[in-house]
């Protein structure tokens, strides 16, 4: 039996198996990240949480350059504010089926039981708990539907009435009709349904229809006991298409096909912006938007003012996500290494194990910091490169360390 008394040797052996502790230099909304924020960013997240808790409806811009960790901030926020429904949406990906995508993410975040509770609470409000002859809960679905329409009809526009009817039918069927409950639950979970299934439920559209998804989302968010945070990443995407009007000579003029005023890109981004602003009006929904620069924020505000100037009042002062300071890289390195060791089932990790930043050292970390100008993404790229060398090259660790100590 081999007993590893030497922690450093054991760590090197583990690395030689081919696992790099620094794998991911781009954070995404899909893959969970448990690594917390570095100390210098704690005040930022504290003020972010403070704003969220004090405001039921707001738009909070977060400004940070590429690679500063805006998406990582989402995971830190989600982990800290676990008592909120925190949803991540990248505007790059949801031009189509905007509300449906958000609805799907919302359902995934809250889970099936809270979803059932919310719709149950809704039908109860619509009169499902009425006791016939003083005792018996015999809900009349038609009466419930009429009560529902009477109570929430004025919250929606005229062109949303058909969708509203669908939603009310879906919810009341799910709660009150045991024979159609399974199909109704599939509908509620946002599954794509064919005409036969929909007509069995006495409905016209499933939730892939944007208006239906919007109404459902509004009902769920406004009736959820937890507040909801929508983290809209890459928000500048909306204005980028506006600024595509940069003087460039085009052989084909799109106005020949699409009219003089707006290009298809502009129409599309205006459409998305209108939808985002529609979301903003939902009670209990906080919007966090991330942008790459203050200029983009001004562009966004300008575009919003064209649609509805009153929304500008719900904008909060932007928070700025700066680059790492020098001590951050050391803290980040130690945290990440510990996290890696825990994930590869290392037990009894000595508390002082990364005091000397093994297998690197403080000098290398400082060099990395200087080369990457403190940009977290660049820092991770450097660390990946160095660790790949440690793992895969035939060079000795000492030689690799010397090489990176020398590089200025």
């Amino acid at each position, binding site marked *: 039996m081999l007993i590893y008394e030497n922690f450093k040797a054991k760590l090197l052996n583990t690395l030689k198996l081919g696992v790099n502790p620094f794998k991911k230099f781009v954070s995404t909304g899909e893959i969970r990240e448990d690594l917390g924020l570095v100390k210098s960013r704690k005040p930022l997240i504290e003020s972010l949480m403070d704003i969220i808790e004090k405001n039921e409806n707001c738009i909070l811009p977060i400004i940070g350059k590429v690679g500063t960790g805006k998406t990582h901030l989402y995971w830190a926020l989600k982990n800290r504010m676990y008592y909120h429904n925190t949803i991540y949406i990248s505007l790059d990906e949801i031009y189509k089926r905007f509300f449906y995508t958000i609805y799907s993410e919302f359902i995934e975040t809250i889970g099936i039981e809270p979803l059932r509770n919310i719709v149950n609470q809704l039908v109860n409000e619509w009169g499902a708990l009425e006791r016939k002859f003083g005792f018996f809960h*015999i809900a009349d679905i038609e009466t419930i539907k009429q009560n529902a329409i009477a109570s929430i009809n004025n919250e929606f526009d005229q062109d949303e009435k058909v969708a509203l009817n669908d939603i009310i039918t879906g919810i009341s069927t799910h709660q009150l009709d045991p024979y159609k409950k399974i199909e109704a639950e599939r509908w509620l979970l946002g599954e794509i349904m064919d005409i036969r299934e929909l007509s069995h439920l006495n409905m016209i559209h499933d939730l892939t229809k944007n208006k239906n998804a919007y109404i459902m989302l509004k009902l769920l968010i406004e009736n959820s006991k937890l507040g909801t945070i929508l983290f809209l990443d890459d928000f500048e995407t909306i204005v980028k298409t506006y600024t595509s009007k940069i003087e460039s000579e085009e052989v084909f003029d799109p106005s020949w096909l699409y009219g003089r005023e707006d290009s298809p890109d502009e129409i599309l981004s205006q459409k998305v912006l209108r939808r985002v602003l529609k979301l903003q009006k939902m009670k209990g929904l906080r919007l966090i938007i991330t942008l790459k620069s203050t200029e983009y924020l001004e562009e966004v505000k300008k575009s919003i003012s064209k649609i509805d100037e009153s929304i500008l009042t719900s904008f909060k002062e932007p928070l700025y996500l700066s680059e790492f300071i020098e001590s951050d890289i050391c803290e980040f390195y130690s945290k990440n290494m510990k996290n890696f060791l825990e994930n590869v089932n290392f037990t009894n990790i000595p508390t002082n194990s990364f005091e000397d930043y093994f297998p690197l050292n403080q000098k290398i970390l400082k060099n990395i910091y200087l080369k990457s100008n403190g940009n977290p993404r660049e820092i991770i790229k450097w660390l990946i490169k160095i660790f790949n060398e440690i793992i895969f090259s035939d060079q000795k660790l000492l030689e690799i360390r010397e090489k990176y100590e020398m590089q200025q």
Partner: protein
Amino acid sequence: MSDVDSHILYDSIKKIVNEGDFKGSIISKCNDNCNSIIFSDNISISESEGFIISQGLRVGFDIVSNKRTAFSRKLDYNHHQDMCIEYSILIPEDVMQLYDEGQFSDAFPFTLNMLHTAGLYLRDPENKINHLDFFKGEILKNPVSLIMNGILVADRVVIDHRGDPVFYDCLIVGRDQDENLKVSYEPLANVDDKVVEYIIILGIEELKI
């Protein structure tokens, strides 16, 4: 039975008469041939007009072709009808909330919902009804039972392996040793069929009418 403050609207034995219009969950027991029970969400009691119940549900056993048959029918009752009321009691709202919370979802797959009202058990020497063995192990929705001189309304009843009914989520109205009316809520009531006067399973279609 855990006693709960109750609202006795009328008690013929204790000579309690509370005049006025009452709304809520009201159980009235009749002193008629079929020991019927009236469930209603309203009752009006006055010296001049007596009792007025609109849109109540009367439950009991009728004699049809010399056979006793369970019934539940909607009624508009006033004192001229020959069903003198023994007592009327308004179930407190906090008890009703407990009762509501204990109800099974309609979607629970193994519950039998009778479409029409039927007698499950009747202790009558001449026209005895006993379907308890037939429904052994089944869950039946909406039972109403008269047990000695108490009324038991439950969300569901299960017939156990001994053939005795076990009621779940029950409201019990009855008299104590001093003949005072009491109301209680019990999550579970195991009853020996020897003390049961009758058990009626309310039909879902008849409740919808």
